[in-house]
């Protein structure tokens, strides 16, 4: 049996303008703009789409009158991309559009963003939100391994500098940043300073997948899915985020290592290992999560992530450059789902060689991720230029 995604290619990607506030847009209009952008990027017309993923993509389906078509309501990043690919691999659709966007839903900033603080009777009364959830994971790692705020700050400065030089980033030109700048920013949830944390913004994003046999005739170099996986431990932000939270089926895999199983499966499917990854488009809700991911995916040993990120590998020109558009810290964090797709968008752009900033020379393999330990899930997708 051949590779499960041998017949699938990503052929269109598009980010709309991203901004702290997108005046004149709502979530539906910015998502539709993203959808049209991705379809055009692929060199296709709306009528070429016969499958859509995401709630807002249903509006595209209706407005462009391309029904009847296959539809999934999957929404949160990499699992939605994998589902779209599966639909093509299984013959349920030939060309799938995935689109999402958010604008206008969070503009009063006295409270943290609504998607950071779901109601739950065992956490809400204690003032929990994403920064605190992830901080509880980071603090445990510091206790076990001596991981330092300086190593976290170096991660944040590296990602923010990628955004500083990216003209399309919400915080373009805001730097450059040093680790000291991060450490001197105000404390949000110890050990996270303001600049260790993701921002909030608005924007849309979309991508198009099609059958690999057709991909060669389209506008852009096709990018292939070499492997992917998703690791979840339960609902996010409803239960204590315990580093050592384990399971009965795989007691060796604890929540602190969430994403390890997904990465192992992705690498096995691709026939690759961490040393083969040219671009690490790792999801960056908080600086510590990059340190954790390098350990979880096997780039370094447990507890070594802090030293690893300080060893010159994550910067532009390093062996494993991270989050090259500025990520959720500087490029954009457009709500509950938009940014969860944008590591994949950037990975595709890197493999095409079309990034307008921080292009990694001759990138062949990109590792894109989503989620994080504080949310009890991590998703992984390996992209490559060669058809698997």
């Amino acid at each position: 049996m051949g590779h499960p995604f041998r017949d699938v290619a990503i052929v269109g990607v598009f980010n709309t303008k991203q901004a702290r506030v997108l005046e004149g847009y709502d979530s539906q209009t910015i998502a539709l703009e993203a959808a049209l952008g991705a379809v055009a990027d692929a060199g296709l017309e709306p009528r070429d789409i016969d499958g859509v993923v995401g709630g807002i993509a249903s509006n595209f389906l209706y407005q462009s009158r391309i029904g009847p078509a296959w539809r999934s309501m999957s929404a949160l990043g990499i699992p939605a991309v994998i589902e779209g690919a599966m639909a093509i691999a299984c013959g349920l659709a030939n060309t799938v559009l995935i689109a999402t966007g958010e604008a206008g839903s969070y503009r009063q900033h006295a409270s943290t963003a609504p998607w950071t603080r779901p109601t739950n009777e065992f956490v809400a009364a204690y003032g929990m939100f994403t920064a605190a959830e992830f901080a509880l994971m980071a603090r445990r790692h510091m206790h076990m391994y001596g991981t330092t705020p300086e190593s976290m700050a170096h991660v944040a400065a590296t990602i923010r500098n990628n955004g500083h030089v990216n003209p399309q980033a919400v915080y373009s030109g805001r730097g450059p940043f040093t680790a000291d700048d991060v450490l001197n920013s105000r404390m949000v949830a110890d050990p996270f300073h303001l600049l260790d944390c993701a921002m909030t913004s608005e924007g849309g994003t979309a991508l198009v997948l099609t059958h690999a046999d057709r991909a060669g005739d389209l506008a852009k170099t096709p990018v292939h899915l070499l492997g992917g996986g998703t690791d979840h431990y339960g609902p996010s932000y409803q239960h204590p985020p315990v580093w050592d939270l384990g399971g009965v089926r795989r007691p060796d895999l604890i929540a602190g290592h969430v994403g390890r199983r997904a990465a192992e499966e992705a690498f096995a499917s691709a026939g690759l290992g961490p040393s083969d990854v040219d671009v690490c488009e790792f999801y960056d809700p908080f600086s510590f999560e990059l340190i954790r991911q390098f350990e979880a995916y096997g780039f370094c040993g447990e507890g070594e992530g802090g030293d690893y990120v300080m060893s010159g590998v994550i910067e532009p020109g390093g062996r494993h450059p991270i989050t090259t558009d500025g990520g959720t810290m500087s490029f954009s964090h457009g709500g509950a789902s938009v940014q969860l797709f944008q590591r994949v968008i950037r990975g595709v752009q890197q493999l095409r060689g079309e990034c307008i900033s921080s292009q990694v020379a001759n990138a062949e393999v990109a590792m894109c991720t989503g989620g994080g330990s504080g949310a009890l899930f991590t998703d992984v997708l390996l992209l490559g230029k060669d058809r698997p």
Partner: protein
Amino acid sequence: MSMLTPQVGDIPLPDPGPISTPYWQGCREGVLRYQRCLDCGAPTHTPALLCAACASMNLEWVDSSGRGEIYSWTRVWRPVTPAFITPYVPIIVTMEEGWSILSNLVGCEDNAVSIGQLVEVEFHHTGGPNDIWLPYFHPRSP
């Protein structure tokens, strides 16, 4: 530095469901309760239908000693909503019976927190339509 105290503002309060009602009733009575499996003896929290160790539905409610130690902590300066007074210190406590609970630390200076700190539960009446007594933890001596 500031002394950590229970929140007194209009914070979001629990809305107990059928599984968790015995837990909140215990808090009302000044007792921290958790579920223990009658088949394998393992503890479970947060309140659940299934044992976390063997998936048995044969769970009983038992009283905790109320004592544990801090497993991890954070100190929040940017409140989740303006109703929360900062700083506040979310903690995960490993209870003596081996289960984990999320709460806030009170009864000490905000910079006195550390992993391994021994703590004990206390309850604060927050009222509301469900007459909630919220468990917090304060430092204790060995």
